[in-house]
C-alpha cells in the first residue's frame, strides 16, 4: 500500500491551490495521504490541507521560515523517511521545480517531473520536447518523487479533516538563504488561475498595441493578460506575462490569442485551454490549428469591435 507525502506550497499564509493537483494525482495511485507544511505560523495552511490528508505534518523552525531549497529538502526528506513514504509529491510550480530534485537525490529516489497523467503507482506520463512528445516514464526506485503539472489535474474531493501533527524539523546547515521577494503587483487575476486570458503577440506591433488593444478587452472580461515569448524578449511587456513552455503553462476557460502566430513553444503553454480564440491576419498561422474559433482579420480593426461586442454581450 502506497504512503504519500504531499509537499505544501504556501504564500502569504495561504495554501497555493496548485498543491491540490498533487493531492489529486496521489489519489489516483491510492493509499494513505500525508502532507507536510514547512515554515513558521503555518497553522492556517495546515488547516486548509487537513480535508485532503490523513495527517498534516507541520514543520516549524526558524531555519525553514522562508522557502530555501537546501534546508527545506532536508526536512522534507527526513519526514518522508520518518513516515516511510513511497511517493513524495509537489506541484510543478517554480518552487516545486526548484526544491524537489534535491529531495529526490537525498532519498536516492528517481524523479518524474511535471507529469500530466498517472498510469499506475510507478509509471507516469509527462511532456517532453516542449510538449511535442508525451513520454511514459517508469520510476523503479523504492521511493518516487513526482511533480505534477497543475493544469492537468482537477481539484480533489475534500474528505473528513485529518489530524495535524508537529514534525520535529532539523534543517541542518545551509549554504543558502532567502533575501527578498519582489512581487509583481497587479489588479488583474494571476495568469495561473485566471478564468479568462487575453494574450498578445508580435502582431500588436509594439507595447502600445497591448495598451490600446489587449488591455481594454481584458478589462471587459476581467481577464489576465498573457504574451508570447517574442514580445517578452523584446521588452514590450513584463517577463512574467509569458505563456509557453519557457513561461507559464495555463488552462483557462477562455483564451483569446491576438496577433500570436502560434509557435510550438507558445502552444505548449496554452493548448489545455477549454476554448481558444485566435485573431490573426495570416490565414496559415499555426495558432489556427489549435483554435476553436479563428478570425482571419486585421486585429487593429476587429479587436476594438470585439471589445465593444463583448461589453454589450456582458451587459
Amino acid at each position, binding site marked *: 500500500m502506497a504512503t504519500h507525502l504531499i509537499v505544501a506550497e504556501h504564500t502569504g499564509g495561504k495554501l497555493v491551490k496548485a498543491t491540490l493537483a498533487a493531492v489529486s494525482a496521489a489519489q489516483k495511485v491510492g493509499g494513505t495521504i500525508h502532507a507536510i507544511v514547512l515554515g513558521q505560523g503555518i497553522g492556517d495552511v495546515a488547516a486548509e490541507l487537513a480535508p485532503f490528508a490523513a495527517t498534516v505534518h507541520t514543520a516549524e523552525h526558524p531555519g525553514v521560515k522562508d522557502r530555501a531549497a537546501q534546508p527545506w529538502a532536508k526536512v522534507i526528506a527526513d519526514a518522508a523517511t520518518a513516515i516511510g513514504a513511497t511517493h513524495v509529491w509537489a506541484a510543478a510550480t517554480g518552487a516545486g521545480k526548484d526544491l524537489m530534485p534535491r529531495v529526490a537525490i*537525498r532519498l536516492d529516489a528517481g524523479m518524474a517531473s511535471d507529469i500530466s497523467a498517472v498510469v499506475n503507482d510507478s509509471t507516469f506520463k509527462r511532456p517532453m520536447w516542449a510538449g511535442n512528445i508525451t513520454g511514459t516514464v517508469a520510476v523503479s526506485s523504492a521511493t518516487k518523487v513526482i511533480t505534477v503539472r497543475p493544469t492537468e489535474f482537477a481539484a480533489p474531493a475534500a474528505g473528513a479533516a485529518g489530524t495535524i501533527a508537529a514534525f520535529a524539523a532539523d534543517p541542518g546547515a545551509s549554504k543558502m538563504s532567502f533575501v527578498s521577494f519582489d512581487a509583481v503587483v497587479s489588479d488583474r487575476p494571476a495568469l495561473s488561475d485566471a478564468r479568462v486570458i487575453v494574450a498578445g503577440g508580435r502582431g500588436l506591433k509594439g507595447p502600445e498595441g497591448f495598451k490600446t488593444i489587449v488591455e481594454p478587452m481584458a478589462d471587459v472580461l476581467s481577464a489576465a493578460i498573457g504574451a508570447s515569448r517574442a514580445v517578452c524578449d523584446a521588452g514590450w511587456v513584463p517577463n*512574467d506575462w509569458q505563456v509557453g513552455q519557457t513561461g507559464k503553462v495555463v488552462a483557462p476557460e477562455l483564451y483569446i490569442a491576438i496577433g500570436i502566430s502560434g509557435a510550438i513553444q507558445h502552444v505548449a503553454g496554452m493548448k489545455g485551454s477549454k476554448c481558444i480564440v485566435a485573431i490573426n491576419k495570416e490565414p496559415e498561422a499555426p495558432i489556427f490549428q489549435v483554435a476553436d474559433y479563428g478570425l482571419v482579420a486585421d486585429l487593429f480593426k476587429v479587436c476594438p469591435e*470585439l471589445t465593444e461586442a463583448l461589453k454589450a454581450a456582458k451587459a
Partner: protein
Amino acid sequence: MKFLVTVKRVTDYEAKIKLKADKSGIVTDGVNMIMNPFDEIAVEEALRQKEKHGGEVVVLSIGSSDSVAQLRSALAMGADRAILVKNDGELDANGVAKILQKIVEKEAPDVVLMGKQAIDDDNNQAAQMLAELLGWGQGTFANTITIDGGNATIVREADGGLETVKCSLPCVITADLRLNEPRYASLPGIMKAKKKPLDEVELSSLGLNTTLKVKVVGYEEPAAKQAGQKVPDVATLVHKLKTEAKAI
C-alpha cells in the same frame, strides 16, 4: 575564480520533432543538433563573470563523441578548456548528477553554471541534484548574478515575481532565458577553439553506478487538438462564444 559550465547536445528548438514509426523514440536523422539554449546562456554568463573577476571557464559535456561539436562551440565563444565524459548509454538525472559530482570534486570550481533545463527531456533536475550531492546552495532560474566577497547573490525568476537568494561559494546556479543574450563566436574565436584543450574521460573510469532509476518506456504524440472553425466576423464570433462554447 573558476567556473564549470555544463553543455548538453540537444535537438534544435526550431526542428520539427517527430516520432519514429515504431515509437521507440524521436527521429534524429537529418535533425540539426545544437547546444542546449539555456546552456549557451550559462556559458555566456561564465564568460562575463570571468571578464569581471578573472579566472577560468571550463565546459563539460556528457555524451558520445558527437558532443565535441557543442564543446567546440563553447570554446569558440571563449571558454578556456573542455571535458567530455564519454558515454553512449542512457542516463537519468540521478546518474548525470553523480557524474557531475565526480568532475566537480576533481576540478573544484567556485561556481557551477548550468542551463535551467535541457530542451529535449525538459526534466529540470540535474543541477538541483548536483547541489544537494555536494551540500552546496543553489540559485535556479537566474535572472541576475552578482558575485562578491565569497558569496553569489542570485535574482531568480519565481512565480509571481523575482526572488533574491544568497549562496556562499562554491554554489550551483542555473540560467534562465533572460540572464543574458549569448554572443556569437567570432571567426578568430572559432579558429582558436580548435587548439584549446579538450580532455576525454571514459564514464567507466569514474567508478559510478548509474543504473537507471527513471526510464522512458514509451513515446507518443500528444492528442492533437481538433482544429476548430473559422468565423467570418466579430458578430458570429461573439454569438458562438455565447451560445456554442458558453465561454462568455
